[in-house]
């Protein structure tokens, strides 16, 4: 069987540049809408899922789903420190970090307020949260009103910069350092001294949760069972990774949104593509008749039109990909981070990045839109009877 060359289909796309460009632009807009939403979900998931160390456990009061609404007594902390299966540092100190999470109001630099996650820590926190480091400035000095601020929050709040003065809770806090944590949600937190924070918030219990580094994966299961079963404290231990993954569940709403947008806009654009292809078939009736008379099979014609439709899809994708990457960069620089509230009611600041996988999904969608839009017109072209087609011309 003789095929029509691919170049024939591509040239046909180029033969009517305005009309093809319009259709490609429609497909491109679908690509942009889809990639931006997928990029948003991806960035949110990456932020939350990259948080947490697979060796760590989060210990909270039973029933708490975030360490902001939990209480742990000093007594429980002292007991857990000496449980078996906990990793120790060079000085033989157990790697247990007691923490107090409080969500005070904080004023946005752009006006309005939101809840920010403030984590009261002790120096041990930096050894248990191995991914968190001080990227600029220095460690805070306890009881001196000093704070470390996550990289994602810089500029978002009044005074959120080294040397700046943050106002939250009852006091004022001087920023002495910037936290970096590989893009994870710790970069959306403010860290201060635990005792100072407990005093500021007048908490009867000094801690809201405990983070524990286990000595080995085998110890993790045993330690969990022991903490869960201890009747004295009503505490519960969860792997840190699982804890952050469950925070990402709040992205489910976004999934539905993306699916809806992709479906509706995709079908709409498919209709648009079908329109262009129908017009193209109609305009080329004589040409198709001639091709058939020359001996090209129905299948060859069908294939040529399908390739033309796919080419439209690819062109639309290319256009859309460039625009969406540019838009994502514009949003990153223009808006800074995109705020998103997870279950904690505090804000996670996400840098909007379009990942290659998002583009791959959008590419598949664009070609699918082009090809399904092209199927019916391609059939019509293939079904044309050569004699009639030629006579009509």
């Amino acid at each position, binding site marked *: 069987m003789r095929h029509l060359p691919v170049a024939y289909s591509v040239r046909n796309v180029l033969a009517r540049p305005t*009309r093809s460009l*319009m259709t490609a632009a*429609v497909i491109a*807009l679908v690509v*942009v*809408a889809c990639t*931006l*939403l997928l990029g*948003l979900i991806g960035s949110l998931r990456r932020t939350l899922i990259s948080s947490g160390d697979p060796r760590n456990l989060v210990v*909270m*009061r*039973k*029933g*708490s*789903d975030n360490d*902001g*609404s*939990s*209480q742990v*007594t000093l007594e429980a902390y002292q007991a857990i420190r000496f449980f078996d299966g906990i990793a120790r540092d060079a000085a033989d100190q157990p790697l247990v970090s007691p923490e107090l999470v*409080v*969500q*005070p*109001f904080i004023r946005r630099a752009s006006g*309005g307020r*939101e*809840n920010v996650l403030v984590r009261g820590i002790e120096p041990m926190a930096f050894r248990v949260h191995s991914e968190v480091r001080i990227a600029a400035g220095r460690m805070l000095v306890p009881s001196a009103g000093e704070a470390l601020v996550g990289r994602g929050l810089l500029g978002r709040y009044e005074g959120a910069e080294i040397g700046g003065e943050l106002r*939250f*809770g*009852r006091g004022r806090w001087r920023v002495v350092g910037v936290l970096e944590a590989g893009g994870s949600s710790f970069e959306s937190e403010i860290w201060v001294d635990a005792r100072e924070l407990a005093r500021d*918030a*007048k908490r*009867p219990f000094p801690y809201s949760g405990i983070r524990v580094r286990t000595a080995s994966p085998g110890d993790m299961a045993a330690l969990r069972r022991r903490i869960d079963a201890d009747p004295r404290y*009503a505490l519960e231990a969860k792997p840190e990774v699982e804890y952050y993954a469950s925070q990402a569940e*709040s992205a*489910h*709403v976004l999934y*539905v949104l993306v699916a*809806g*947008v992709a479906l*509706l*806009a995709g079908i*709409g*654009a498919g*209709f*648009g593509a*079908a*329109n*262009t292809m*129908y*017009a193209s078939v109609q305009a080329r009736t004589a040409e198709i008749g001639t091709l058939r008379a020359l001996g090209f099979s129905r299948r060859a014609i069908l294939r040529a039109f399908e390739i033309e439709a796919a080419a439209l899809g690819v062109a639309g994708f290319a256009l859309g990909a460039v625009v969406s990457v540019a*838009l994502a960069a514009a*949003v990153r620089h223009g*808006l800074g981070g*995109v*705020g998103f*509230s997870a279950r904690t*009611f505090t*804000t996670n600041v996400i840098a*909007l990045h379009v990942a290659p996988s998002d583009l791959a999904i959008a590419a598949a969608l664009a070609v699918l839109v082009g090809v399904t839009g092209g199927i019916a017109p391609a059939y019509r072209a293939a079904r044309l009877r050569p004699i009639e087609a030629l006579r009509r011309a």
Partner: protein
Amino acid sequence: MSWARFVLANLWRNPLRSALTAGAVALAVALVSLLLTMPAGMDLLLDRLASNTRISVHHKAGVVYTMPAAFTRKIRQVDGVAAAVAMSWYGGAYEEAGRVTFPNFAVEAEHVGAVYPDYRIDPVELDDFLRYRDGAIVGRGTLRKYGWKIGDRVTLKSTIYPADLEVRIVGEIPNDAAPMLWLRRDYLDEALKARGWAGLGNANVVWVRVADPNRVNAVMRDIDDLSRNSEAETASETEKSFFGNFFGSLDGLVRIILLITSLVALCIVFIAANTTSMSVRERAGEIAVLRALGFSRAAIFRTLVAEALLLAGGAGLLGVAMAWGLTGTLRALAGWNETLGPLGNFTVTPAVVAQGVALSVAVGLLAGVAPALGVVRRPVAEALREVF
């Protein structure tokens, strides 16, 4: 042939193309209407929950910073305050759910009814709440979710206080959307003291109902003046502003959604303009003949634009109807899967219908005028020469 029939006949000339265009425009209008329901949905949710005569008094630093519950008595003495109730977040997890799945607060049974008259709680049930120390009033949404009924006993494990409580449901808040549970402060206070802790001396929020809607701002100022320079300085705000601030951090997300909405709207203009220009170009000869027969430029222009308007407008109505059906489905789904909860609040309001239809009319105009102008402006002789 009347003018209207002429327009219709032209639309029918290529029914497949008209249908495809209408379909594309309808889908895009449906999408834009759906996205438009989101900010309106938030507002509607706030309006349904919030009253403009109710204010929230909380610590200036945030609701997690507590203030002395005794402060409520001082608030009640402020001129213009009709009622005030102290609330503490109990953070109770229902045993079977294993985590906190609905908001629950410790409240004063004797004051809560007067602060929330708009909730229309049965007075008999409020009396029972006063009578039974372990009583609880539960929102209908949560009652339905767990199949509870009045008279049931439910155990809540607090994530905040070292006191798990068994409560007896004595009443409901008759609103399908209401998720909250109220239990009594004195019951929790006693339980804490019995376990050797200090009692419940603090509150997260004091909710206040103001008698006169015109004096809300003055009352808020007077209340905040009470605690000036104390350890727990308060900040008052209306209920709507209080809940609205919960969504405040989402503004970046909202902006991205709006960006996408406008892209989609642009997309429809492209689709419609594309089709109109195709169909006008194909009819260049016919239009030239009409002109030669004596039809004026204006008449032909009107016909072409009317055609585009009719197609886009009809498609817009279809799109709005689709959005209406979809939000209905989402509401049904939200009742079935709790993680989709927020999507259940989106309703196609008359404002959204108006916006959707206005968008489609604008699309029809934009898509019809440019190609129609182009074809009408061409000299008749030139166009005819090309055809014959």
